[in-house]
């Protein structure tokens, strides 16, 4: 048991003790947690990321939902403490299944158990990893001229993410902390995070990483914690600029926001996950016009998402305000691969060089 785990164990026991004390006094058990909503995130000028503000939510055993969540909290803290003591770990999914035996405390979906794990992080100021909980799979893949040292069963092993891997790239493990994951030299000028697998493969096939000394990171949707953590480390430790290249739709804007500003759900660890200097390449609403890209009509959900972004403090700057309104006005969205309209090489020969030159990256 290391110090971090010891601290986690103590904090979790404290939660159970507080509940016990309330009951023993004849009071209604209650927990105070930061309000995890877009109304309660604030910009932290120190770290340049968005974190939870001071708004709290009171969870009491007066409502079924509150009481159920508290009962789950009691079961979960007990379960985690046991893992810490016995030096075991489990995936988030395993914890969800283990709750099958918890009767009334059983989780009805994995979202519920994931949320509770995050709740515990916010209350104890520990990390999920300290609770010996991990996501089921490693996250994304990277491709580029960089060496990572990872711990294997046979000992440390160094992998070059261009020479030693297939075109699928190198799979990032679920934890990329220094203890188990080290960066051992590279020949890179910048890092580009890419939303879709199709574009990731296109850029590799076109030899973009080799030509431009770029590390490609495939996000595949909302990036996981370890992906965001890796981007952050590459940016901070290796001073590599990070750019984000996604589809041109409201959901992609949110992917960028979670990388650059911090996600609302994990705002308690934004300074650990977010890369405030990350820049958005596109597809922007202006790209759709400037490059005359093939488009789809916005769905009702897209429009609702865009409108929600207008009231999201993270998007409250001139650039995003203009982009979001422009997209609403033209009522259109476009995919990254729409650039193929001008041929397969267009993205690497024309679009990216133009955009990245404007941004001062190339």
């Amino acid at each position, binding site marked *: 048991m290391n110090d971090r785990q010891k601290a986690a164990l103590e904090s979790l026991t404290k939660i*159970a003790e507080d509940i*016990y004390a309330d009951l023993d006094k004849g009071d209604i058990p209650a927990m105070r947690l930061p*309000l*995890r909503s877009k109304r309660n995130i604030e910009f932290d000028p120190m770290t340049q990321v968005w974190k939870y503000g001071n708004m709290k939510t009171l969870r009491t055993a007066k409502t079924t939902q509150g009481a159920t969540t508290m009962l789950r909290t009691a079961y979960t*803290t007990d379960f985690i403490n046991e893992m810490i003591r016995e030096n075991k770990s489990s995936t988030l999914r395993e914890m969800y299944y283990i709750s099958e035996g918890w009767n009334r405390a059983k989780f009805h979906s994995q979202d519920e158990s994931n949320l509770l794990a995050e709740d515990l992080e916010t209350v104890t100021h520990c990390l999920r990893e300290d609770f010996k909980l991990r996501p089921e799979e490693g996250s994304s893949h990277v491709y580029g001229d960089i060496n990572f040292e990872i711990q294997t069963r046979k000992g440390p092993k160094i992998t070059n993410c261009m020479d030693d891997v297939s075109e699928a790239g190198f799979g990032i493990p679920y934890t990329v902390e220094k203890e188990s994951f080290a960066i051992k030299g590279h020949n890179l000028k910048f890092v580009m995070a890419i939303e879709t697998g199709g574009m990731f493969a296109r850029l590799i096939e076109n030899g973009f990483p080799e030509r431009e000394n770029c590390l490609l990171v495939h996000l595949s949707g909302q990036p996981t914690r370890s992906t965001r953590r890796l981007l952050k480390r590459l940016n901070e430790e290796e001073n590599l600029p990070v750019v984000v290249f996604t589809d041109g739709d409201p959901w992609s804007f949110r992917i960028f926001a979670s990388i650059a500003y911090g996600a609302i759900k994990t705002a308690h660890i934004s300074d650990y996950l977010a890369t405030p200097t990350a820049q958005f390449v596109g597809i922007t609403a202006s790209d759709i016009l400037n490059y005359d890209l093939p488009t789809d009509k916005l769905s009702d959900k897209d429009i609702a998402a865009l409108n929600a972004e207008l009231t999201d403090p993270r998007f409250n700057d001139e650039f995003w305000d203009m982009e979001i309104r422009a997209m609403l006005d033209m009522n259109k969205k476009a995919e990254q691969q729409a650039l193929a309209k001008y041929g397969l090489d267009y993205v690497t020969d024309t679009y990216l060089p133009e955009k990245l030159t404007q941004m001062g990256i190339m």
Partner: protein
Amino acid sequence: MGSNEAPAKKPAKSRVTAENLADKQHEISVTEFFEKNKQVLGFDSRAKSLLMGVKEAVDNSLDACEESEHLPDIIVKISRTGEDEYKVSIEDNGPGIVHRAMPNVFGRLLYGSRFHALRQSRGQQGIGISATVMFANISTGRPAHVASRIEGEDEVAWEMDIAVDTKTNRPIVTNDRAFSWPGKAHGTLVEYTTECRYMTGRQSIFEYLKETAIVNPHARIEFHDPEGKAYIFERATEIMPPKSKEIKPHPQGMEIGDMMNYSSISEQKTVKDFLKNDFCRMTARLAGEVCEIAGVSPDTDPHDLGREGSMQLLKGISAVKIQDPPADCLSPIGDVLIKKGLMHTLEGMRPEYYATPVTRSPKSVNGNPFCIEAGIVYGGDIPADGQVTIMRFANRVPLLYQQGADIITKAISEVDWRRYGLEQRGGKGVPYGPAIIMVHMASTKVPFTSEGKEAIAYFPEIEAEMVAALKLCARNLKSHLNKMDKKTKTHEKFDIVQGLLPDLANKVAEQLGRPVPDLSRTISKIMNVVWIEPSREKIPDGRRITYTIYNYTIRPHTFMLHLQIPAECMNDTITGGPLFDSAKEDGKSQWLIKDLAASTSVQVSFELKGEMADTFDPDDAYISGINPIIVMGAESLPGDWGIKGMKITESEEDYVQDSSDEEEGEEELEDEFDNEEDDEE
């Protein structure tokens, strides 16, 4: 208006016999009819003509039974006789038709007793049954078969075949003979073969008979469909509707044509007498005032009034205040019987709630008194995903066609149902949800949009009454929904204190290796209610009602429980119960709950027997002598209960204020977060 139970039996002399009816029947010229009624009959499609025929016959039977004060027993049979040919038979137990009148009743258009009478009845012109016979006759070439027997030991039954001679509007009778009708004391049977299409669904005969049963709970209706299936709508009550009376027209709201018509046929010699004697609610003083304002000499001969004079009179009438028309010429169904009819017929859908129906006091439009009634049935198996079902009735007759053109639909659309717990787009239009809304208009003359009698025409006075009735009814629904909401919350608290909280205590105690803490104070703080839980259970010939009263607060309470028991149902199981305090003649009863200690419970239990047992709604419970804020499952005793409830004797500071609302609000913020941000990671 409250319930209007008439005595079930009346002295024999007031009974209208078939002979009397026959005397009143006289001829109406067909030309006159067609002139007045351009759109006729409603036999415009094959599916509809079948329904119209049954409707005319059933309406007539119900009217005749009512006039003669027989509880109606009606049997409708339909059997298939050819490709598009069906045999229809309708049999009733009405007063019967005298032999000499039979050909004219069934074989001559516009022969009836009501054309000039101003009274509430189902059939408003004598067009129906003979038109049905004529239509059947034309479509298949076969005459109708009719049988009837009038009351009396020495009367025989007569049967005959009748066809209509369309040129002369005269009946052609064949096979006229007396016969013995075993088991039939009195009544009429009409049987005809017609070309038509048999339909099921919203505009079917089944639906028509079902809705007829709702508004005629005193009738027993049997239906045999062409498949050979029998449906029986049993009588829900033995109480006959009060007999409607003929009245003179009410002067207010009359149209010029009516006034000219009345004045030209008046038997009075002077305008003053004409006003005083030919209209209801007119006194000599009022007649004088009207004449003065109208500038018409009171001694003018009413036949000389003409258009000008009639106009003047109408002006005078509109300037004076005249009493509303008398209510007793109308026979509304009444709140109690509407509820019974609805419950009886809709039982299969297991509705969660019957909103107490509303019967408005009579008003008048165009000189005709009318009365609006409304009822709402909610929940259970009533489909929740579409618009509500609207049931429209005029003088106890269901209206199945032209819903969109009907003032009832319009009135329903005018109400903002969102305020009463139903969905409605933009607060206008027919609402959505698991509800059936019924509206009944009783009037001496229902203003239909056409002679097919399918939809009621628009008049602001009628709409206002409908909206008022619907709103009252909707308020009942809303308070029910609120009650249910409160109940759900209380159940939720039970789940917490009985399940989640003990589990939580055990789990943290186990984790920390400490003894399980005592939860009673925490439980009282979470609940902080006196909880009154009603239950109702079916027993032979009635219901057993039980109230379980839990004290989930931190101190003892003394208070009174009040219930409105149907007066007919009072019995020893009520008055003999240990906690029973007292009851009034109208059934308002009270129980004293004395010193109910914290964390204990008591029961009040009794039986209700008889016909009215099922009209008692156990959720309508009231309390006094206790702060209503801490009581769940019963309301504070209303001011109009007629007695003073117990005074609250405990001091206010005894109550721990429940601040749960505020904190629940905070909890909801989390919900919002769950829903909005599930796209992240």
